[in-house]
């Protein structure tokens, strides 16, 4: 599903080139649950952003389902974001002005899904995540775990093939963190490909494979 070939990411300053990622080769198959681990500044988020088409590699090739994703244009990226990739973040990144229902609905609006269908899909997810009672609340009225639940709901409502999670539990205490990880695992078991970045060894255990990144280079890559 995802094939990275010799990916570099660097910034040129006046006298030297600073590498964030160097010669990264990575292949992720459909249905995998990959955890990227590594110390701060190792390039985990950058790698995730490149996979999510939010950032471009400085060199190397990236194939998303055999499509050369390092060559596609801005407009096509929007298409990928609409139909193939879902994101969740450490800081949840919900839209403060919209309530739970509207936040989850947003991606469908961009996919021009009809009102009735949107209603059904959102209701379905709210039900599944046990959040029906909270649908009219605003993000600042929710706990961190609940906010992340909403964020996940929003990420998966468009039925993406790939879910990218950047430290999804970083802002949560352990109980809520576990809940989120269990949910991700369940989604994976239902067929969703997931790539997550985390510091937490325990949470890495929920995945099927761990990739250890140190100073922009893959040090270890093993199945759990």
């Amino acid at each position, binding site marked *: 599903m995802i094939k990275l070939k010799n990916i570099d990411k660097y910034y040129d300053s006046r006298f030297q080139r600073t590498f964030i990622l160097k010669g990264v080769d990575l292949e992720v198959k459909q249905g995998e649950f990959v955890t990227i681990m590594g110390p701060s500044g190792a390039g985990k*988020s950058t790698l995730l*952003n490149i996979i999510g088409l*939010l950032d471009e590699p400085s060199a190397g090739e990236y194939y998303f389902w055999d499509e050369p994703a390092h060559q596609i244009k801005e407009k096509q990226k929007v298409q990928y974001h609409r139909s193939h990739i879902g994101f969740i*973040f450490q800081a949840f990144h*919900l839209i403060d002005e919209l309530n739970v229902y509207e936040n989850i609905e*947003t991606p469908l609006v*961009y996919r021009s899904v009809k009102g009735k269908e949107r209603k059904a899909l959102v209701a379905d997810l709210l039900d599944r995540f046990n959040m029906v009672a909270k649908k009219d609340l605003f993000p600042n009225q929710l706990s961190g775990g609940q906010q992340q639940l909403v964020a996940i709901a929003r990420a998966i409502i468009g039925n993406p093939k790939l879910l990218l999670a*950047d*430290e999804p539990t970083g802002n949560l205490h352990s109980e809520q963190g576990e809940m989120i990880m269990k949910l991700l695992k369940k989604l994976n078991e239902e067929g969703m490909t997931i790539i997550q970045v985390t510091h937490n060894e325990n949470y890495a255990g929920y995945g099927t494979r761990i990739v250890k990144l140190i100073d922009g280079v893959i040090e270890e890559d093993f199945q759990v």
Partner: protein
Amino acid sequence: MILINNLLRIIRKNKLDFFLNLTGLSAAMVIFIFISLYVENEMTYDNYHPDADRIFRLTTSLTSPAGQNTHMALANPPFAHILKNRCPEIGEYVCIGAEGGATLTFEGNEFKKTDLRAANSSIFNVFSYPAVLGNPSEFLKSPNTIVLTETLAKNIFGNSPPLGQKITIDKKDYEVTGVIKDLPTNTDLQFSALIPSDFDGTGELVDWGDYYVYLKTTTSDISELKNKIDLLTTEKYSDLQKTLGEFQLVHRLQPLQSIHFDNSLLADSPKGNKTMVYTFSVAGLLILIIAGINYNNLTIAQLEKRQKEFSIRKTIGCGKNRIIYNIIGESVLNIILAGAVSVLMVTLLFQSFNALFDKAFHLLSILRLLPAMLFVFIILGIFSGLYPAFNTIKSSLIKKSGFSRFGKSLVIFQNVVAIIMIAGLFIIWNQTHFMKNAELGFDKEQLIVVEIPPEPEKFPGKEVLRQEFSTLPGIENFAFGSGGTNLGSTANWMKAIMAVKDDEGNDVQFVLNQPQIDENYIGLLGIEIVEGRNFSGNNPGDADKSAIINETYARIMGWNEPLGKILDETPPQKIIGVVKDFHFNALNNPIEPLKFTMLSRQPSYIFLKAQPENLKLIQQKWESIYPDEPFEFQFMDQHMAGLYKKNEKEMAIFSYLTIIAIIISCLGLYGLASHFMIRRTKEVGIRKVNGATVREVVKLLNQGFVQWVLIAFVIATPIAYYAMNNWLENFAYKTDLRWWIFALAGLLALGIALLTVSFQSYKAATKNPIESLRYE
């Protein structure tokens, strides 16, 4: 010092904000300074004389039996002489002639001036005109002397001493006995040279001339004097009153300083336009307010970024007051800086300002306002710092992603002003265009009007002129007109104030224009005869017993069948024709009643229908007939267009004001939008990650702005409608206020706002989301 250092650092960090702020503020200040100068100048006409409050103009009011009042600025010099002898409260009086044109010749060089006046020597006792050269007590005392203004003296004599030199006017020599300082622009009594008046204070009361009489009293309380004037009028005019019939003559006193805006008098100097003074004041003030709003909005947005700084300052022991002082101090510095830029701009631009407003300000007279301006800037700075300062203190660290209600209403206010001004400009433009291109009722194209010198001894006779000119190639038609048949400037048409009874026996009063023409005139100008016939050279009765009137005359008199009516003149005139109403005046005024009679005097104008390229031929012919007289001519179409110069000038000024108001609004909106976008970057990032396209994001970000412009449109339209409706009342013939003008103004404002904002929202929408979504 710390304050200034800190400010410099902040400026360096926020170059765009600083630039927008400075540009907007200083542009508004330039406008404000200029408009203040203009308004001050207009409001202080003639009050530079130290005794201005004790100087009055004697005017004359005639009331017809039907109660119609004619108030003239002119008065009777012999009566002034009597007044002076009988009323001790009159210290001095002076009789000043109307402005006249003449050619001053000195050593063969000719200087054409239109502002010569004749006056008694007492003019220097009534008014204060500081002398530069010569002995003021001798000015105008002896005949054939002349007093010049400094500029004119310099023009004529250059650097050589003017005193004692002889200037020739109309073949008479005048000795220069004095030079006075140039008159300020804000006087209604303009002149560049004075010669002694031939009025010597005696003479019969019926000897009127074109004289303005000014009195200087010993006190500013004139109630007593008014009574005396009334008594003297009854006493002295008793004989005259008999000849006037039932007309009632009264002399009035008009305070010098009230003359400029009082346009109810006939034969008066050019008047100030109070509407314009008010309009420009309001526009200038609004522009300043808009700039102030921008300043507030931008400052608040900027301070928000500095919340962290203030919080840290507070934790290390900085008091609230100190933060407030700090912010206000920065604001004062900012405004003084903008003030300095604006003063610089004013010094660079004041020449164009003079040209635009027909003023003659000197740089010094502008710079004398500097201390006052500095004071205003400091006050302005304190006030514009107050709101942001308290806003900062109040709004701890809560981040809002929209505008505050205050910010919103300010943007709406700006747009209201912009829409009103745009709509106003469209309507002014439309009206001016309408007047310049209106169907006048006669054919003004290729019509050349040539002035005939008035001296009878030079006049070769109508037949000779006709022969000479109509045989020229390219001359299609030829006619004479008299009594100033110069269309468009009816000032020297023969006019009569008519007070007669119409057909139903009602009293009617009106001004009747009575130009004299020949039989070719109506045909040449293409004026349509709707009833009856034109004059004919073969019909001897037409010469003095026939008249042709216009429709308005017939309508006012209530004549359904005007043909054959006999007018009560000597000899009686029979109406032989009616012409369709045509615009001989500017369209600001309604068409007045008009009566053509056949030329009985020497004509004063030749009307030629000719291609402009034949002008040279006409001129050559002219010079062969009149070797000593200049060839004075006018194209009628140019002349008619020239009637609207004043309107066009006002339009130009208003356009500048509108454009500057819009630019300043845009600057503010641009700055505000940039902050607005910064606050929404996170949201934009999330939306993009969730599949929003750039276009969708731009649309979302622009939505709010569109809403506000729509609200502004709803508020502005009725105000603009009301204001412009009032403005159009000034014109006898006006365009309609069409709905699309307002719609267009709204659309334009929307377009401008969208353009301004879209640049920012596009920038925000194309920003890479990972920048905004990075964990904070």
